[in-house]
């Protein structure tokens, strides 16, 4: 098992100096930090640690470990966190499948889990749990917002495409839930596929008003480059994942002007966000991604709860988390009954700014949006 341990540098010393405080909290941060998808985990971690560092949180100890994007490794890491490190809170997971492998067992053992990314429908609906808090989004949110945006933009027919895996199928379902036009074709690609010539040919032939695609990570990079080169004049829209700061520099102008949906954007006009983007750039010398923002908010949520309750009193701590008394970088934020966000989802556009490809907010897509699965949750 990977034991990548990064105790917050100064934190440790400070905690020793101050003696053991009553509100000491131990966080197990498990994330994808090596191999494919490592960029996302690294951003979540950096955002998370940035918030703790800014707050001078000397009573929080963080243990960081890599899951290599393998669910079975993640399960081992979680076992270690719970059995050996005896952490109070777990967080950090990037991918839904890993969350599904780790979260149910962790929360059943009385640990808190705060999701900084990944909101599988199972955990929002029947599988919701009082110790599970999602500070990012339910998986469908951005797809639903994209469906709504497609209506607003007046697209009457859509070609939709996603990888053939559960998140992909959920994504297209989410899009269709809000989209009112005609879906002319629904295509599932292979997970990890790198060549989209065949699909692009189908898009060209479909004559749809818009093509909606959900291809996270490297798949999105490949698709966007190839789509731009193919010279198809059907406009694209996508969820924020495919246009995130972690991949935009690798896509370059191939993504210029594409509309996408996200709960956050680096130019989002809130005071908290401006401060976050500036200090993230100062600390890490790059523009933060949505993932970094979510990691930052996860830490803020944790800190806000610690101010009013001690983690040793689980019920009080849970109430404190539920209150979500923190200033989210995305603006208004509160939890629905199933402890998933109620938040605004924005439409963004990819632009080049100061030599860096990034997103700017165009306008809201869905306001005070929450997921449909909460109805099945007994909380």
């Amino acid at each position, binding site marked *: 098992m990977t034991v990548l341990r990064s105790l917050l540098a100064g934190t440790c010393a400070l905690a020793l100096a101050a003696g053991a405080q009553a509100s000491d909290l131990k966080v197990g941060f498990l994330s994808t930090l090596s191999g494919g998808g*490592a*960029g996302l985990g690294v951003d979540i971690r950096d955002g998370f640690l940035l918030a703790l560092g800014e707050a001078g949180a000397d009573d929080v100890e963080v243990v960081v470990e890599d899951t290599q994007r393998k669910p079975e490794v993640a399960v081992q890491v979680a076992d270690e966190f719970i059995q050996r490190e005896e952490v109070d809170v777990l967080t950090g997971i990037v991918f839904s499948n890993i969350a599904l492998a780790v979260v149910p067992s962790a929360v059943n053992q009385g640990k808190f889990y705060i999701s900084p990314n990944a909101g599988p429908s199972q955990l929002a609906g029947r599988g919701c749990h009082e110790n599970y808090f999602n500070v990012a989004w339910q998986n469908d949110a951005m797809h639903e917002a994209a469906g709504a945006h497609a209506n607003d933009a007046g697209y009457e027919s859509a070609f939709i495409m996603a990888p053939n895996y559960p998140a992909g199928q959920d994504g297209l379902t989410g899009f269709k839930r809000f989209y009112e036009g005609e879906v002319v074709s629904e295509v*599932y690609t*292979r997970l990890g596929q790198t*060549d989209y010539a065949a699909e692009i040919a189908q898009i060209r*032939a479909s004559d749809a008003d818009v093509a909606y695609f959900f291809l996270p990570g490297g798949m999105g*990079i490949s698709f966007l480059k190839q789509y731009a080169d193919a010279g198809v004049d059907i406009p694209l829209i996508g969820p924020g994942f495919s246009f995130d700061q972690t*991949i935009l520099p*690798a896509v370059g102008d191939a993504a210029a002007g594409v509309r996408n949906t996200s709960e956050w954007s680096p130019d989002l006009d809130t005071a908290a966000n401006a401060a976050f983007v500036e200090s993230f750039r100062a600390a890490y010398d790059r523009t933060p991604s949505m993932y970094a923002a979510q990691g930052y908010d996860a830490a803020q949520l944790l800190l806000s709860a610690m101010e009013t309750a001690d983690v040793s009193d689980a019920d009080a701590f849970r109430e404190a988390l539920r209150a979500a008394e923190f200033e989210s970088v995305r603006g208004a934020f509160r939890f629905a009954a199933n402890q998933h966000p109620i938040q605004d989802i924005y439409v963004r556009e990819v632009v080049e700014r100061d030599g860096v490809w990034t997103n700017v907010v165009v306008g809201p897509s869905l306001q005070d949006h929450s997921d449909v699965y909460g109805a099945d949750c007994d909380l």
Partner: protein
Amino acid sequence: MTTILFIEQVLNGLQFGVMLFLMAAGLTLVFGVMGLINLAHGALYMVGAFAAASVAAATGSFLLGLIASLAAAAMAGAIVEIVVIRRLYRRDHLDQVLATFALILIFSEGTRWLFGSFPLYLDIPEALSGPVTLPGGIDYPLYRLFIIAVGLAVAGFLFWLIARTRLGIRIRAGEADREMIAALGVDISKLYTLVFALGAALAGMAGALVGAIQSVEVGMGEPVLILAFVTIIIGGIGSIKGAFVGALLVGLIDTLGRTLLPIAFGTVMEASAATTVGSALASMLIYILMAGVLIARPQGLFGAAA
């Protein structure tokens, strides 16, 4: 499906196949001459893509990037051959597999250490970007046509190299009998390094060419490596001709299967189920083809009988 779309998909399959050929040719050459099975071939593909991306970013020239990919992959190949591979020729396949598996880990993590965890940017050069209109009114990306042309040119070059040049004679002699060629006074270890570097350069070039239209990231070589193996099994180990035919078969079947199967299933079942089943089956098509070849001709289509 219209005829135009079908022709476009055939071109796509051809382009994919030609790319696979560049990978498979290096693998099969190294196997044919040295009897070595090299799992790290995919890592050399990645090296080529990263070299191209970083040089292109620094100089702004895709051509320089492409040259850098050839040079970097060939150099990495030569170093690996001299430091590690050379000790493995007399070993069994198990040792070769493990050592080259170890090399994958080292290359992947080393690249991550050098370039970070984020994908790199590499774009199609201005002159080759955008679609062209082919006879029959098909809009097709110029760059993909360029890849097909490069792949065919490399194939032609390899056939010429093997059949007509002194190096080719030595390569063929090396395949036939290592001791004989040593007896002829050819410096066998230099020949091996050269062949290995040649295979590596082909992989590196494939990585750079594909990197311009895909994501340049760590681990990008592994799916291609598996497909190259399938290609070689179908074509026959050690045969350049086999690699060529196998690569085109795999490229065409995979591409056409992906588009045609869901449509075919759509005629007998409900649309979204058809896409799921069709896609699942399409991802297995080439393996089914491989199984068929293994049953009918275990030595591959162009392999020498065992």
